[in-house]
Each structure stands twice: as structure tokens, then as C-alpha cells.
């Protein structure tokens, strides 16, 4: 079926040239494994009732866990990871009547989904585990009973961060804690990952206090460094299980490029319209299809357009297509999930909300509308298609940006590439300090805690100097003026939530930055394919009022990003001017576009108070001489600046141990605070998170590495390996690789000349004594 479909697409005259590549990933047969010891009878019976034979990786995981090892299972989507760790947990539940287990998921939606899995396992095996979710949505009337009775508790890192100071209420759960399960462990990378790693140390410190020493079970998408990642995340030694023993049908991975629509072959057809067309084709063939889009709005629009199309072509299928995204109310989401599972829905258009393991079964086909930014995500999304025996289809629809186009041009490069590393930094002083402070409010911190926190002495001294902790006979005790867990955030997602209200009822919720994008006054908000006009966005009450109105257009805000230097920490004024300090990053929303099928049909002014945050960043200026030299060679100076910024951000994780998504950058041919062409690189976290500071101190190495990266890259005009950024706000344009090389060479030359000259005085604006 799938193969015929792909062949027919290839043959179809009007699709000529749109299939850039078809990669056929061969089928694999099941490889079963054997347990070293038999399972308890109830579990054994359950498996045979369900006709489940354990795959090799599942058996190995169970064997290792029974030996008391910590295990990370890093096999593809739908390979049965959940069962592999639920079996040993339930085994222990059946042999130790007090044993408890904590399951940590990155999202509430996942927690609720897995609760059902655990409840049914409890029912099937008759092993009493009383699984329950404990998170921000848990009614306070149920909390104490869950803490006391549930043996498996499912939660998320944000909740855990809030609950740790209340450990005494959890004492019986903690005393008996045998397992900590971290599902989707690859999500915990970059600053979020470093925060999670320290949160785990706080948790383990409290476990030690209550006399327990839980075993870890991690499950993860395929990443380049599962061993290192799991060990950094938890501080324990791990056994990696990555040989997938599950059976899989063939997969056809199609690279789909929208056709040119002009004679000069410069403009391609809209990728969104192309996606709609592909989805209609897939659904008409009755392939159950999951379509991933890069934004919430696109998920809504593509599902709406698809339904419009189907109204003409096959009206019976109109009701079989729906949108799915974060922000929907939980019951709405559950309804879509269950309809999809029972095949009541054939097509679902979703944001990455369905990328993680929500159980919706396996699809025949997945459409990925636009490269999602990482290989990890791309393969996770593609992995949603695929059944044990039948063929499946994954289609990547390219956007017109250089990054997507690069993969269309060099598909082999895509399939030959290793997955990204999951990076965690245990030496980030901002993050470390924040968590040591949180820990000091949980139990007094003493020198015994050095095994959990590196550089503990200096961290404590720094906290003491700010009166955040006090030294006592019992250790260091937190004594600041507000709650530490309110100040220390695990990621940079805004915790200001806007409610969208339609005639007195809450339609959905979104965080403040999303509300700026989608719920400004005049915006068309899409919800389950229906259109609503926003009549008011009240920032004080955080309520957006909407009225339902059927319109055929949608809206898109335009914004500018401005940076201003508020306070200089340090400065080096030699031939190249470098600075480090506090920056205010301001996003001004000034106008919105009214669009219809990707066409702009109108513009309206937008009156919104700008969104701004203060962070720490570094900057450097480029001299007029370099600018004129580049222009003299007929190269694009702005493209060069932009390319240098991208490539530096790409190399930054090498020095600052972060994820590139943790950093922001702006390059400008003239900046009011420096009066010169300037590149800024800043921490994407309110108050700064210690990345730019490390980069500032390592600037010469960073320049050298960046230059090497660009120079040695085999591409001629730039590619994802050097100057293309997966998160560029300007569609990777303009970019000029040659100009970038000249800028970096000149900068390095002048720096080297400077360092050969007799040392000038360091114009650091902090005290010289240090």
C-alpha cells in the first residue's frame, strides 16, 4: 500500500521534482530475549494473556535492573520501553509491600496518559500499586491521601521542585522509595537539563536523609551520549541499553520539496499548502496520518484547510481530521487521543505536543511540515509512523529556508548524521548556586553534601555573603527573604498564564509570550478549527476575551528585537572592543498582518506594551575598516555578521556546556550603545544563567573554533553544519559565508597583535583586587 502510494506519487506528472529523495529503511525482525529468573506468576500470566514475548532489549533491561543496576533504555519510539521498566517496578511492588516508585515526566499530559497504562497494569496483575498523579492540578483535598496511600506517584520536575521543601509530608513515601523513573530523559538537556540534574541531587539528598537509596530507570530517544547523559543527570553509574530488539516494518522516508512557482525558479509554493495537499492525499487513502507543524497556529490552519478540501473531495472524511496542541483543556485532549487510538480520527495535525510518548498507537504515515530543529525531534516524530509488520511512511516537507533546503539538496547528509548530544553542565555557577540555596531550605547543608554539589564551599560562602544562608551549629540554614523555589526556575518558560475566555467560559490557556503572538486585540485565534476574534487582552488580569466569528483570514504579528546595555560588568578596549554586562532585551510588537492562505491581505497597527527581560550578555564590535574591506570585495557585510553570530552560537556549547536553544543572538550593522557594527550573544534566561560570561572569557578560543568550523566546512555558500541556524528568526537570511570568514580572520589577527604588544591595563569595571 505505502510503497504503491510512493510510486504513484513519483509517477504523477504534476508532482515531478517534488520528491527529492526516498530513503527506504529496511524492516527488522524481532529479536527476543530471555530472563535470568522467572517473573512472579501474576506478571507472567499477564504477559501470556496479552501474548507478549519480551524483546531482547526489554529482557536485558529487566535482568540488569534486577541486579540492582541503574539503566537507561535508549531505543526508538514504540519499542516497548514503558513495559521494560514497569515490569521490574511491579515485581518489586509484589515482593515488598511497602515499596514505592516515583515516575517523572516532562509534561502533565504525558503523566495523565501513563497513569492509565499503570492503572491497567495494576488491574491486570492484581499487584496493588495505587498509581496516582500528583501535580499542580491535584485537588488539595486528595493530596494527603495520595502521599500516604499511593505506591507509584507520577509527577513532573516543576512540581517536584515545589514539593521537596515539604519532604516531611512525604516521609513514608520517601523512606520506601525503590525506583525513580525518568521518562523522555533526552528532554533534559541544556540549561533545563542542568537544572534537572541538580534537582535530582536535591531529591537524592533528601532520600538519603530518610534512609532510602532508589535505583534509577531512564528512558530516552536516541541521543549521541546516553551513558554520559544519564550519569550527569543523576550522579549514578549507568548501564546503557540501546540494541533495539523490536520488530519493525519497512519505512519510506520521503523528502518533499514544494515546487517553484516562478520562471526564475526562486520562489517555491507555500510549504503549508503543500502539507495540506499531502495530508488530503494520505487521508483519502485512509492512511492514519499524524502531521507535525512548527506552530500552534499552523496546526489549526492546516487542519482547517484540510477539512475544507475534504468537504469538496470526500465529505465523509471531514469529521475524521482534527487539530491537537498544548493549551487545549485536558478533557478535550483526551477525547482526541482516544478517538485517534480507536481510529475515529484518521488525520491529526499537531504541534510537537504529540512528539513525546503519549499513547495514540502507531500511525501509517507521518508528515513533518518543516524541519523541527534537531535530529532527535525529527526521528521521534518520524518514529510515530510504523507498525510491527506493515510498511510506513514519513514525509518531511521542506520550508524555503536554507536549512530545510540544504537537507533537500543533500539527503545523504541527513541520514548519515549522528544524533545530537544531550549536554548538561554541572559546573554552571548560576544554576549550582540556585539549587544549593534551595537545598539549604530543605535540610541544613553540611560538608557531607559535597557528594551532591561541586564547589560546595565556595557556593556556600557566596550565599552567605548575600545573607541567603546563615552558618549554624547544624550546618548552613536558608534565611533569605523569599521562597527559594519561587526564584529558581527550571527553564525559561513564562509562568504567567493567560486565560482565553469566550462568553464567560475558559476556552484555553497560553503563556504570556504565546498570548502576545496569538491573542492580541484583533487577532484571530483558532481553536479546534473554529475562528475566534480577540476583543480584549487585559495584561493585568491576564485574561483574553474572544468572540466566535467565522472568518476566512488569520493574523500574524510582527515584532522587532532591541537590545540595550544597562550595566557594563567588564570591558576590553583594545583594537577589538569587547563587553560583558546586563542587557535589556525588548520585543516590540508593532503591527499585525492579515493573511489568507499565506497571502497578506492587510495590515493593522498593534498597540501592545513591549515584552522585555533583563539578562547577561556579551558583545563585540567590528571596525569600519573590516566593513569597507568586505564591501570592497562585493560581499554582504550584514550577511557576514549574521553568519558569524550563528556559527558562534553553534560552537558555544563547546565552551559553555549548554544547548544552542539556551542562547540568543542579535547582529546589527550599527548599534546605538556602541555606535558600531555589533554582535550580541546573550543568555535566554531572566537574570542571566552564566553562559555569555563563560563565552566572554573564552572569546579568543571561541573565535578560533568558529573560524575553523566555517573554513573547513565543505559547503560553498553555507549549510546547517556551519552558518545555518535551526532557530533563526529571520529565515537564515541574509547570510554570507565568505564575509564571515574575513570578519573572523581580521578579528583574530588584531587580537593576536594586541596580545603580542606590551600588556595594556585591563579595563575591567569590577574591583581590581580580585
Amino acid at each position, binding site marked *: 500500500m505505502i510503497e504503491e502510494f510512493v510510486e504513484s506519487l513519483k509517477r504523477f506528472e504534476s508532482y515531478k521534482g517534488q520528491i527529492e529523495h526516498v530513503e527506504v529503511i529496511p524492516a527488522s525482525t524481532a529479536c527476543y530475549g530471555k530472563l535470568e529468573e522467572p517473573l512472579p506468576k501474576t506478571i507472567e500470566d499477564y504477559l501470556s494473556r496479552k501474548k507478549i514475548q519480551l524483546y531482547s532489549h526489554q529482557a536485558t533491561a529487566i535482568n540488569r535492573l534486577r541486579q540492582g543496576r541503574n539503566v537507561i533504555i535508549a531505543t526508538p519510539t514504540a519499542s516497548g520501553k514503558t513495559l521494560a521498566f514497569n515490569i521490574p517496578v511491579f515485581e518489586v511492588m509484589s515482593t515488598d509491600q511497602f515499596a514505592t516508585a516515583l515516575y517523572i515526566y516532562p509534561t502533565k499530559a504525558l503523566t495523565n496518559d501513563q497513569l492509565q497504562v499503570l492503572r491497567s497494569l495494576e488491574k491486570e496483575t492484581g499487584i496493588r500499586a495505587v498509581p496516582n498523579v500528583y501535580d499542580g492540578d491535584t485537588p488539595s483535598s486528595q493530596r494527603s491521601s495520595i502521599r500516604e496511600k499511593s505506591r507509584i506517584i507520577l509527577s513532573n520536575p516543576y512540581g517536584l521542585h515545589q514539593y521537596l521543601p515539604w519532604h516531611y509530608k512525604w516521609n513514608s513515601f520517601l523512606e520506601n522509595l525503590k525506583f525513580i523513573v525518568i521518562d523522555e530523559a533526552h528532554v533534559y538537556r541544556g540549561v533545563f537539563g542542568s537544572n534537572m540534574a541538580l534537582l535530582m541531587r536535591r531529591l537524592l539528598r533528601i532520600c538519603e*536523609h530518610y534512609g532510602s537509596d532508589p535505583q534509577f530507570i531512564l528512558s530516552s530517544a536516541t541521543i549521541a551520549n546516553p551513558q554520559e547523559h544519564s550519569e550527569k543527570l543523576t550522579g549514578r553509574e549507568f548501564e546503557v541499553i540501546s540494541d533495539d530488539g523490536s520488530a519493525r516494518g519497512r519505512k519510506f522516508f520521503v523528502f518533499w520539496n514544494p515546487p517553484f512557482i516562478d520562471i526564475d525558479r526562486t520562489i517555491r509554493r507555500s510549504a503549508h499548502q503543500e502539507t495540506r495537499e499531502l495530508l488530503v492525499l494520505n487521508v483519502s487513502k485512509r492512511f492514519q496520518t499524524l502531521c507535525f507543524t512548527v506552530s500552534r497556529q499552523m496546526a489549526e490552519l492546516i487542519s482547517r484547510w484540510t477539512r475544507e478540501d475534504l468537504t469538496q473531495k470526500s465529505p465523509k472524511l471531514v469529521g475524521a481530521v482534527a487539530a491537537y496542541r498544548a493549551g487545549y483543556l485536558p478533557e478535550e485532549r483526551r477525547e482526541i487521543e482516544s478517538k485517534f487510538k480507536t481510529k475515529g480520527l484518521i488525520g491529526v495535525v499537531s504541534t510537537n505536543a504529540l512528539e513525546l510518548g503519549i499513547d495514540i498507537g502507531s500511525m501509517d504515515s507521518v508528515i513533518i511540515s518543516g524541519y523541527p530543529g534537531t535530529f532527535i525531534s525529527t526521528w521521534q516524530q518520524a518514529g510515530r509512523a510504523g507498525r510491527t509488520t506493515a510498511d510506513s511512511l514519513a514525509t518531511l516537507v521542506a520550508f524555503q529556508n536554507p536549512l530545510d533546503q540544504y537537507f533537500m539538496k543533500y539527503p545523504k547528509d541527513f541520514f548519515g548524521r549522528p544524533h545530537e548530544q544531550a549536554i548538561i553542565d554541572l559546573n554552571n555557577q548560576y544554576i549550582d548556586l540556585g539549587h544549593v540555596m534551595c537545598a539549604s531550605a530543605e535540610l541544613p547543608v553540611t560538608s557531607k553534601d559535597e557528594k551532591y554539589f561541586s564547589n560546595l564551599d565556595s557556593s556556600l560562602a557566596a550565599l552567605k555573603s548575600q545573607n541567603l544562608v546563615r552558618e549554624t551549629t547544624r550546618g548552613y540554614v536558608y534565611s533569605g527573604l523569599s521562597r527559594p523555589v519561587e526564584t529558581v526556575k527550571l527553564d525559561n518558560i513564562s509562568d504567567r498564564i493567560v486565560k482565553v475566555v469566550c462568553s464567560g467560559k475558559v476556552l484555553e490557556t497560553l503563556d504570556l509570550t504565546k498570548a502576545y503572538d496569538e491573542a492580541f486585540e484583533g487577532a484571530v485565534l483558532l481553536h479546534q478549527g473554529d475562528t475566534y476574534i480577540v476583543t480584549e487582552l487585559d495584561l493585568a488580569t491576564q485574561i483574553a476575551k474572544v468572540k466566535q466569528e467565522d472568518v476566512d483570514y488569520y493574523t500574524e504579528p510582527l515584532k522587532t528585537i532591541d537590545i540595550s546595555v544597562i550595566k557594563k560588568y567588564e570591558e576590553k578596549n583594545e583594537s577589538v572592543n569587547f563587553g560583558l554586562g546586563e542587557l535589556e532585551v525588548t520585543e516590540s510588537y508593532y503591527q499585525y498582518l492579515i493573511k489568507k492562505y499565506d497571502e497578506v491581505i492587510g495590515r493593522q497597527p498593534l498597540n501592545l506594551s513591549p515584552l522585555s527581560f533583563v539578562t547577561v550578555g556579551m558583545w563585540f564590535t567590528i571596525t569600519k575598516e573590516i566593513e569597507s574591506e568586505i564591501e570592497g570585495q562585493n560581499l554582504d557585510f550584514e550577511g557576514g555578521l549574521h553568519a558569524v553570530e550563528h556559527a558562534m552560537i553553534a560552537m558555544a556549547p563547546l565552551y559553555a556546556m549548554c544547548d544552542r536553544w539556551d542562547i540568543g543572538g542579535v547582529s546589527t550593522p550599527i548599534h546605538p550603545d556602541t555606535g558600531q557594527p555589533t554582535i550580541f550573544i546573550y543568555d535566554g534566561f531572566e537574570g542571566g544563567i552564566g553562559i555569555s560570561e563563560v563565552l566572554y572569557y573564552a572569546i579568543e578560543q571561541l573565535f578560533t573554533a568558529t573560524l575553523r568550523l566555517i573554513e573547513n566546512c565543505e559547503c560553498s555558500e553555507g549549510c546547517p553544519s556551519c552558518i545555518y541556524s535551526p532557530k533563526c528568526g529571520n529565515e537564515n537570511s541574509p547570510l554570507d559565508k565568505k564575509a564571515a570568514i574575513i570578519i573572523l580572520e581580521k578579528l583574530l589577527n588584531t587580537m593576536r597583535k594586541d596580545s603580542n604588544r606590551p600588556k595594556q591595563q585591563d579595563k575591567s569595571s569590577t574591583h581590581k583586587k580580585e
Partner: protein
Amino acid sequence: MSVQRKRLLKRASESLGRRIGNGREYSVISEQDEPHHMHGGRIQETWVYQEEYSNAMKLKSKLVQQFKGKALEDVIPGKIISNNQGACYCIEAECDTHIKNTSLRKSREVILSDLKLLSGVGPARERKLKQQGYQSIRDLTKHPIWRESAQEFLSRVDLKDVSSLQSWFNSRLPKSHPLAHYLAGFCRSEDFAIIDIETMGLFGRPIILLGIAKSRASGLGISQFLLRDISDEAGALWELVSHLDGNSAFITYNGRAFDIPYIQERLAYYGIRSSLNNPHFDALHFARRAWRSRLDNCRLETVEKYFGVQREIDIPSTLIPEFYESYLKSRNVGPLVAIVEHNRQDLITLANIFSKLYDEWNI
């Protein structure tokens, strides 16, 4: 550590210090402003009027001036006591306030005459039952349907098991119900323990003063356990626990939500095992029911003013952390005078409120 890492650490800690300082848990508002609920902000947001704030700051500098260079013992008479968890500074006083209580007979009568305490009996059914001659729960022990649950309730009443009666009440009545107050008649006066703590904030920070008042023949015996510095906290907590036993019945103002869980949290913080599941009369709930319609709010200070009590020295509770912080930084004991006095007054007012409530119920 390299110079650069040192600089980084310094900036990181300054940034943290700033953000923790900005996160202070109250706002100063002008008299015209209606205290409004914060949207999406922190869970517990409190406020203090501009005038109160500036008066408190004036008081603080006056006390700092007055007690410059003085030792704690000379300013606040008391003694250092030690126990197996540490030490603290103990201040003892007596005053002639009495905790009024109803007699056991009266409270038993009032409670048993409310048939609605039994599950399944609503106001209409109660009227019907009373018409049929079932005047009290005791009578219902002969009723074919409510016999069992009436017997169960009566056995708790006969055992004078206040804790189990409280949980029974909690499932049938609002926490503010006068009958829940009448339950106090089941306690011996000497078992009452009025408890009020002063802290460095809303949870997760040290308790700096624990006050307990007990009923004596001559009036109230007040003991306050003060931290000379944070090292004293475990000792002070333990001292409070030593003043309690299984029969102690707590009287607090918002203690169900604040004081008692706070003390439990701090005990657990130092790894001290102790459960505080005693009978507990939280007067805030009763006060709200009794006086809410007559007062702007039911803060202890507001209720107290309504009864005409004027404090000579006082500071709003929300500013206590700042007063203590200033003592810790300067070691000037002036601010402690205000804290100790504030706590002592709170204990006395609490005894008065508890007594006055009986006049309100009209049972």
C-alpha cells in the same frame, strides 16, 4: 579557583540575592487602595498600609537608638536554656488574662442536641425527628435508622476523645461552626496551649520566636523561646515540643494553615521526629464567622482594635522578618524588643478572642 570563576560566582550570587530580595512577600499599599488579589502571582500575597510601614520603620530606628550596645539579658529579661537539641533564650511572664471555657456539661448538651452531626440528617429531617421526640443524639440511639451512628458518636463523646470528634465535625460542619468551638468544653483548662510563632517568612525559613501560653490558676503563663541566632532554632523548637503532651489542645490564629505545619516542617528540617496531631482550635475560622460582617478584615490586629485594645509598641506581622534580619546583621537587640512584645500581645489577644467568641454564639 580562577579569578574569572570568582567574578562569575560573585555576580551570580549578587543576582540571586537581588532576585530573592525583590521577591519579598508583601507589598506596601496606600490607605485608599483596596487590597486586591494578585493575578497569577505568588500563592500568598500580603500587604501592609503605607502608614503602618513608615510607623514601623520609625519604631525600628528608635529602638535601635535606645538599645545601642546593650546586651540581650539587660533589655529582655530571660535565661538561656539548653536541651538535647541545642539551646535558646527563654522569656517567661505571667498575666491575669483567663481563658474562658464552657463547662463539659454545657458543651455536651449543645453538641448532642444538634442532630445534623449525623451523616444523612439535614435541617428538614432534624425538624421532623425533633417533632417525633428525638431531642438529642442520645435519643437517637433508640432510633431504628440512626441508632448505629448515634451510638458511635456518643461513644466518642463519652470518651471525651476530642481529636476524633474534631475529625467527625470536620466531615459534617464548616470549620467555623460554633459547635466546633463548643468542643473546647471537653478539654481541661490546663491542657490549653495557645501557640503563636514569628518567622522569617512564609515557610521554608527559620522560626525566630515560638510563643506558648498556658492556663494557670492566676492567669496565663507565657513562655517565649527566642533565637539569639539561627543556631538556636532546633533548641527552641524542641523546647516548645517539651512543653506539650498528647493531651495538649492547641489554640491558634490561622494555626491550621500556618503555625502548626510550619513547626512540623522545621522539626523535620532538623530531622527531629515529632507529630503534632493534637486537638486544635483555630480561632481564625470562628472569628471570621463571628465578626467578618463588622470588620474590614479578620487580621488579629483588626479584631483586637475592635475590642478597644491599644498596643504601645507594635509592628505589622509582615515586617517581623525585616526586624529580625536587621538584628542579625547589626546584633543590635532593639528590633527584638518589638518582636517579643508583638508575640506576647498576640498570645494574650488570642486568649481574649477565644473567650469573647462564647458571647457571640447565642447558643
